[in-house]
């Protein structure tokens, strides 16, 4: 519960009409972002549930199919994404310490790393198309488990696809935040959008932290 401050003195320009003070506004916006992330957890959770069920049912097939993913590219992408999470955290740090130029620099770096991730993903997808590993009528899978391997690739595309979609949205939001930052909107007083952007970006990173071992690493031990 907030305490009702007397509205003495001018209201800060960043304070919306229906809040009493910046503190209440920041608390509300941070809580809102976390609640939003909880819904995202459940959104991906539906796919993780499906993956877990089929992995338990068709263990061997999932191992065999996982061998067809490129561990090197997946590993590089993991590193790229972790680095981008770091640069994002540094952008928030710059905002907290009112270093306006640094905010923009760190955000631009984050966008570059995010784009590298998507570029590598694009190469991987192209490779799967090339080798007929996209589920559907043109799916071809040498060796045993052709059908259940198709399920694996269904999950591969659904999960990494939704993850990549989140990345694309994230990059769009980053551009918008950079535009705001360029207008000098953020300071130690008010940086909710940068902070919430960071929460979103880190969440997308966490999803990948789980996708990487579940998709790329199930089959490589011999």
């Amino acid at each position, binding site marked *: 519960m907030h305490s*009702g401050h007397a509205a003495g003195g001018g209201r800060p320009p960043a304070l919306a009409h*229906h809040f009493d003070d910046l503190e209440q506004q920041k608390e*509300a916006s941070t809580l809102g972002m976390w609640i939003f992330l*909880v819904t995202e957890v*459940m*959104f991906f959770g539906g796919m993780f549930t499906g993956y877990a069920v089929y992995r338990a049912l068709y263990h061997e097939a999932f191992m065999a199919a996982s061998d067809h993913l490129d561990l090197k590219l997946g590993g590089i992408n993991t590193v790229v994404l972790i680095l981008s999470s770091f640069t994002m955290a540094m952008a928030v740090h710059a905002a907290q310490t009112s270093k306006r130029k640094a905010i923009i620099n760190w955000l631009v770096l984050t966008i570059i790393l995010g784009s590298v991730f998507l570029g590598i993903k694009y190469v991987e997808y192209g490779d799967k198309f090339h080798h007929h590993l*996209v589920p559907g009528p043109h799916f071809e899978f040498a060796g045993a488990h052709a059908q*259940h391997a198709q399920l694996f690739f269904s999950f591969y595309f*659904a999960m990494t696809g939704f993850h990549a979609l989140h990345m694309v949205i994230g990059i769009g939001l980053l551009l918008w935040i950079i535009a705001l930052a360029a207008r000098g909107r953020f300071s130690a007083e008010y940086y909710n959008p940068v902070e919430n952007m960071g929460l979103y970006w880190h969440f997308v990173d966490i999803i990948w932290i789980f996708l990487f071992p579940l998709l790329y690493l199930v089959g490589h031990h011999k």
Partner: protein
Amino acid sequence: MSNPALESPKPSPEGLPKVHYLNVDYGIRSWLFTTDHKRIALLYLASITLFFVLGGLFAVLIRLELLTPQGDLLSSESYNKVFTAHGVIMVFFFLIPSIPAVLGNFLVPLMIGAKDLAFPRINLLSWYIYTVGGILTLGALLAGGVDTGWTFYAPYSTVYSNSHVMLVAVGVFINGFSSILTGFNFLVTIHKMRAPGMTWFRMPLFIWSHYATSIIMILGTPVVAIAIALVGIERLFHIGIFDPNIGGDPILFQHLFWFYSHPAVYIMILPSMGVISEVICAGARKKVFGYSFVAFSSMAIALIGFLVWGHHMFVSGQSMYAGMVFSVLSFLVAIPSAVKVFNWTATLYKGSVAYTAPMIFAMGFIGLFTIGGLTGMFLATLGVDVHLHDTYFIVAHFHYIMVGGAIMGYLAGIHFWWPKISGRLYPEGWARFAALIIFAGFNLTFFPQFILGYLGMPRRYHFYPEEFQVLNVMSTAGASILAVGYAIPLVYLIWSVRYGPAAGPNPWKAKGLEWQTTSPPPTFNFDKTPLVTEDAYEYYSAAPAESAAGLTPEKQVG
């Protein structure tokens, strides 16, 4: 009238306030770009009413078709599209948003003494998302309809149906986000925007029930969204996640679908329960019996409600042991519902009961919800559900909850707060008459369906053996009475907007912050942030109802 119990609220001699949220600005833009939660509530009210009428017309078609056993009015294809349209519209576009998006949107900030919801622009966005989802769904209906049933079971929906599954799936998927945004806005608002002195245990029960509802909305909706998205992906790209031909399991879809869609039933009924708590207390002028039990039972329903989804799958081929776990959990969720009914009944004891229209709707709710809840026990009972599953017994049961419960509660709430929303009184006599007609029509429509179900008539049947006809004729007769019952309020409420007498700030002499501001309220709800000094429903207190308002926040220690 001489009987005080039947007295109607007196018109306010002062008339409407000069400036309020409705007349502060005019023109279509002032509505389409508003961030005022009260105006957004009215946008929702208009769209939801439209969908209710549409869904109702489909219901009329269903009942007319089932008047005779032969299936002579529509073709089987059309009939399947009609019941799917009825289900999709009523569940996703009427019942789920009904009370939260209209009454909740209007009242949550008012009841906790806030100027608006925490995220007014996201609130408006949620209405636009709802509208886009609705337009896509209507587009699918116009383009030829969809015939999967509102449950979209794979593999029928993914492979075999030749109707516009994709368009409806996208519509429902998008609409889900409007629900998520509403729930998320309520949660943050209730946590962070309460007025000084509004502690958790001073909150009206309407707020508690909306808090519980919001939890379901944010945790459940994403799962059904992804389930429906996967159906869409499977249809579009042949990426078969539920396809039995490559080892996929159609039952997995049912798990994901019911993980949301069972708790969704509580999204429909919990807000209604919140309304009933408010109306009963005001109608009996008495503090609710066992406040904390009613409050916690809402939370218990929301939490346990997430653990019971498998009772929709007792004959689906799910494992027997899972069936038993789901059955016992389903029985547990009945207890908090029973607690609520007993507490409402006990609230009337030694009260001062007025027979206002909202009270008649509320008492109707208690009766119908009791029957709906108890017949739910039949379906949680494993051995009996094997027989009753997917018959008209289920249809009757969930209509008792969703129509007898949720819509009775919705109408009770609309009447109770209509003076606050519009600033005017509706004709009380007509409203009482409508409440009785709806109660009678409802029972005649749906009670025969319990018997039909035990006789074994399966649901979603376009034509049926002739031994079921007598009961079906009764049901259709009831439906026509029900349709008239629903049309009456539509007419007099619209009439009252122009011709109703001014209501004054508190026509029911009720407690609660929303009655302490003008009717209709100003744009930012209160002239001064209210200070709360007492529990909810303190009707019997030394201070008269009005004087608790208007204390300036400076007197509060920060």
